[in-house]
């Protein structure tokens, strides 16, 4: 029996060798040393009534399991223009997935399921995409050419996404420098995945075809935080037009990460910008770990070409211990296969990501490519409850394993065995190369799992069903008039004022920074102005709708407050009256709200009376409770006359 290293110790040891530190401990120098580079692809749905290439309504979603009909498709790889099959295409073909579409009559038509050619592009969507393209300072193309981008996972029933470049080579300011924008394209959204079990993958077609823009930055973001910041900037910029969708799933991002010596890896479907730092941090170290493994494996075995694994079907008679787990897997009709991986000893338990080692790279691909159901494998460096050291010794003997080798046991349907073996061999060979180009799926805990092989440029080709669309100077001028002016200057100003980030989307969308500026110029504190416009107005607008001439009236109202020398915060109290009773003069609102002018001293003089009343009631003797109660009593009198903060401090400071 070959001696197995303690897997847990091995994991900790290799994590240290990789140089992994948690993100909170990472310094800018950490990322510089790694050669961290990151680029974003931000997908943002546009706010349109209809889909991009058909006249179905956009933005109507169905519940999972709610559908009118099912349609079945299989995706076949097609030869690229160079006569080669794209790597992703081959992988998807190997998976032999049966793609099932759940369609609702209201939201899907024959175009969606690829039974009708596309209709002319949605002009509303095109103009809205151009608005963002202009804000990004991209060069607008002279003619829009719809291109097909192949996707064989079935997420689009045609097998390709129709997409077109609107502009290239733009820029955004970020942390005192500029980051290049490679391109912005307009494209149709894909289906939503309902489930993916074994060989069946189910999608709904409601989201399919909704117009979206994809903004691609150059890989110039040099730390996880910069990546998140760029994401926020791009999101605000898009939202500032007021012409994009908001809410769950309306904006999604793919994040490309590489380190020095590594490869571009695309982390797909990052639902929240705040996930970006942890995901990119971990991916950088995953690549670092893969490079370490590459160096190690190359030292042990010169050439991946001559590296071969051996395998055998495992018969339950060959093992002494036949646990319940073994029996239950066998009862599903699955077969067990043991594989020897020469020279991979100590590699399977090698650190990859927090809580994940190299064996997860193998099992990830087995699940996706060979369609094996999780869990589908264990290995000689795992803590496995149902194969003990004695069993592994038998397996190693059967496989004629040498010391320094590692073994994997996987299980699944017999018909998937061949693909599973090819998948294992391919991934192990890739370990000799370092970091394989992959698309990986993000998990909320900041780690990623294999999703598919990274597609090459071979998957783009022209769409023969659509004619080119000229983008004239006249159209550009028209769109220019529709967009809010000088976005970045306003964003910077809002930051200087310290307006909280979560107020920004509404302010930018409504083009409200000018209003804030006017209030601030008249003497309102930026914090109050930001809150008034970015939060209180937003809430009331949602409840009552927006009154006509609101912004002009807010200025008038503030002037009224200044003229009467009232405290500024009264504006927040008066605000609901404006929404509930629009069209009133400032003085009327003041009166209607029951506010009075009263001297500071007169108000403070009432404190002892209230204190006595509270004590006599005998309900509570806590000073804090008493102060709260007195605040409540005095508030209507004091509002506008004394700053609330001062009143509170006076109460808290005065003796009992």
């Amino acid at each position, binding site marked *: 029996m070959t001696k197995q290293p303690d897997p847990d110790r091995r994991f900790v040891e290799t994590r240290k060798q990789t140089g992994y530190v948690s993100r909170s401990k990472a310094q800018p120098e950490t990322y510089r040393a790694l050669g961290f580079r990151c680029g974003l692809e931000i997908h943002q749905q546009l706010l349109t009534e209809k889909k991009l290439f058909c006249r179905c309504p956009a933005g109507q979603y169905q519940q999972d399991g709610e*559908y*009118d*009909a*099912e*349609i*079945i*498709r*299989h*995706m*076949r*790889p*097609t*030869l*690229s*223009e160079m*006569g080669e099959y794209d790597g992703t*295409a081959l992988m998807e073909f190997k998976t032999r997935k049966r793609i099932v579409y759940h369609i609702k*009559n209201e939201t899907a038509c*024959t175009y969606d*399921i*690829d*039974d*009708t*050619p596309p209709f002319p592009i949605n002009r509303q969507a095109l103009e809205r995409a151009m608005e963002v393209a202009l804000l990004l300072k991209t*060069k*607008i*193309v*002279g*003619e*829009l*050419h719809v*291109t*097909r981008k*192949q996707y*064989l996972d079935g997420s689009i*029933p*045609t*097998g*390709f996404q129709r*997409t*077109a*470049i609107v502009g*290239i*080579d733009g820029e955004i300011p970020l942390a005192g420098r500029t980051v290049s924008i*490679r*391109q912005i*394209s307009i494209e149709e959204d894909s289906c939503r995945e309902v489930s993916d079990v074994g060989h069946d993958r189910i999608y709904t077609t409601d989201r399919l075809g909704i117009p979206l823009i994809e903004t691609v930055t150059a890989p110039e973001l040099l730390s996880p935080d910069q990546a998140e910041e760029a994401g926020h900037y791009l999101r605000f910029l898009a939202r500032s037009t007021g012409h994009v969708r908001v809410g769950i799933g309306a904006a999604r991002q793919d994040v490309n990460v590489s380190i020095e010596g590594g490869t571009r890896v695309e982390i797909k479907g990052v639902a929240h910008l705040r996930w970006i730092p942890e995901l990119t941090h971990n991916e950088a170290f995953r690549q670092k770990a893969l490079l370490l493994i590459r160096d190690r494996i190359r030292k042990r075995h010169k050439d991946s070409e001559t590296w071969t694994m051996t395998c055998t079907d495992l018969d339950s008679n060959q093992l002494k211990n036949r646990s319940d787990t073994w029996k239950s897997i066998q009862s599903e009709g699955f077969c067990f296969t043991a594989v020897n991986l020469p020279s991979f000893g100590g590699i399977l338990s090698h650190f990859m990501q927090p809580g994940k080692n190299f064996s997860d790279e193998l099992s990830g691909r087995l699940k996706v490519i060979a369609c094996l159901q999780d869990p589908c494998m264990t290995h000689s460096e795992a803590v496995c409850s149902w194969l003990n050291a004695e069993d592994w010794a038998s397996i190693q003997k059967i496989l004629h394993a040498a010391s320094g080798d590692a073994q994997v046991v996987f299980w699944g349907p017999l018909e998937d065995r061949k693909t599973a073996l090819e998948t294992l061999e391919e991934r192990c060979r890739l370990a000799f190369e370092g970091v394989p180009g992959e698309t990986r799926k993000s998990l909320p805990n900041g780690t990623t799992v294999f999703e598919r092989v990274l597609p090459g*440029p071979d*998957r*783009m*080709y*022209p*769409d*023969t069903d659509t*004619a*080119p669309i*000229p*983008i*004239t*100077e006249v159209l550009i001028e028209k769109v220019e008039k529709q967009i809010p002016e000088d976005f970045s200057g306003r964003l910077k100003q809002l930051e200087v004022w310290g307006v909280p980030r979560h107020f920004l989307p509404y302010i930018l969308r409504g083009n409200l920074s000018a209003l804030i500026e006017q209030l601030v110029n008249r003497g309102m504190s930026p914090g109050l102005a930001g809150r008034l416009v970015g939060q209180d107005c937003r809430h009331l607008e949602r409840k009552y709708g927006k009154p006509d001439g609101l912004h002009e009236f807010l200025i008038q109202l503030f002037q009224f407050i200044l003229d009467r020398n009232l405290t500024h915060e009264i504006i927040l109290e008066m605000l609901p009256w404006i929404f509930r009773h629009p069209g009133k003069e400032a003085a009327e609102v003041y009166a209607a709200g029951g506010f009075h002018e009263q001297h500071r001293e007169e108000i403070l003089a009432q404190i002892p009376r209230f204190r006595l009343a509270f004590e006599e009631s005998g309900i509570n003797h806590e000073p804090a409770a008493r102060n709260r109660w007195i605040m409540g009593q005095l508030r209507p009198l004091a509002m506008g006359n004394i700053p609330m903060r001062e009143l509170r401090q006076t109460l808290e400071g005065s003796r009992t």
Partner: protein
Amino acid sequence: MSDAFKGYRGKALSVLKEFGVRVWSDASIQTTRGEFKGIILPRSENDDDQHLVLKLNTGYNIGIDIKTITGMKEVNYREAHYKIPEKEFPFSEEKPNVKLFGTGGTIESRLDYRTGAVIPAFSPGELYGAVPELADICNLKTEKLFAVFSENMGPQQYITLAKAIGEEIKNGIHGIVIGHGTDTMHHTAGALAFMVQNPPVPVVMVGSQRSSDRPSSDAALNLIHAATAAATSDIAEVMVCMFGPTSDEYGLLHRGTRVRKMHSSYRSTFRTIGDIPLATVTCEGVKPLKEDYNKRRHDRKANVFPFFEERVSLVYYYPNMHPDIIDALVDNGYKGIVIAGTGLGHVNKPVYPAIERAVRKGVAIYMTVQTLWGYVHMFVYDTGRDLMDKGVIPAENMLPEVAYVKLGWALGQTDDLDCVKEIMLTPVNGEITEREPYNGYLVYQGGIPEIEEFLKRVHK
């Protein structure tokens, strides 16, 4: 036009010439909107002369407005030679031999990725490269007879095809597949059913509704189904093999004389009209739905009747049709007219004199129905009786297009109108049926609860 400026004309061509930049060159273009770099692609000849097409290094194509161009330079030049890789089609003794005739159409074309043009792809090697499953079904040989779109198929092509089929039958082929554009596949299927009668082997026409350059294409599965039917089916008739449902599940074999393209773009566009299809076909094999079909034989007897009179027309009647439509045909020497009439087979009274005149001049006139389903019944109303009196012959439940090709075929054999009538009204292969089964007419109406219930359970 020189190849160096492929597809460019007018102003766009002048701009390329002015700056000395060729198609396929790597160019850098200065415009009022900024600089663009990429490969100049050929332009589709239908597009305007105001733009250049550029392929960016990301693979995307864009257009550049020539009015914005201030400068342009050729940085590099690399001409593209595009060819589909071929793999030798394997041969095995025990597999049936199938011949695939190419006529053109979507099924035999694929996209030239660089230009976006559709180019033919047809050799066995190319097909094997794209659909390797074919080698598990049969030994495949191919012959390209024409390369035309469906709408350009006509009598000359029908005759050439019929003769070629006859030759293959004589040579002992096990089955024949014909790749064809889908638009007029039912016309050709009808013509072949009359020209190649009682064949000993299946003659299977196949097409595709989605070109093979797209992953969701129906081309591969249709070809697999057609090859399976040709190689293994017991049904020795001229048939059309296309998708049953729009889902990738099974194909249907339709009798060539009763089939029609019923949707402009759906995969499941072909339907048998007035009867049920002959069979279903999957990768596993053919399952007959009907029992009365011509069985496969082991002889090599080919009955080929390659005739066609081209001066035959199909007139789709509409209210307010004027008699000069018919007069014009007669004056231009047409020998036969098939009318697709309303309802049970009617036209309006103003046309009567023109019909009388046509019949007097020896023009054969046959009535079919534009309802597609159902028989011509000209005894029910006076109009019908009047028309018959004037010499219009009801063509039973022959589909209008089928009646058209049959009349062309009949008049190609004889000018004797009594003989023509006998040929027309004697069914060759189901173009006229004695009875119409109830399940021969099923056009479901969406929205009705029980239909919706059914649609949810059964894959569309």
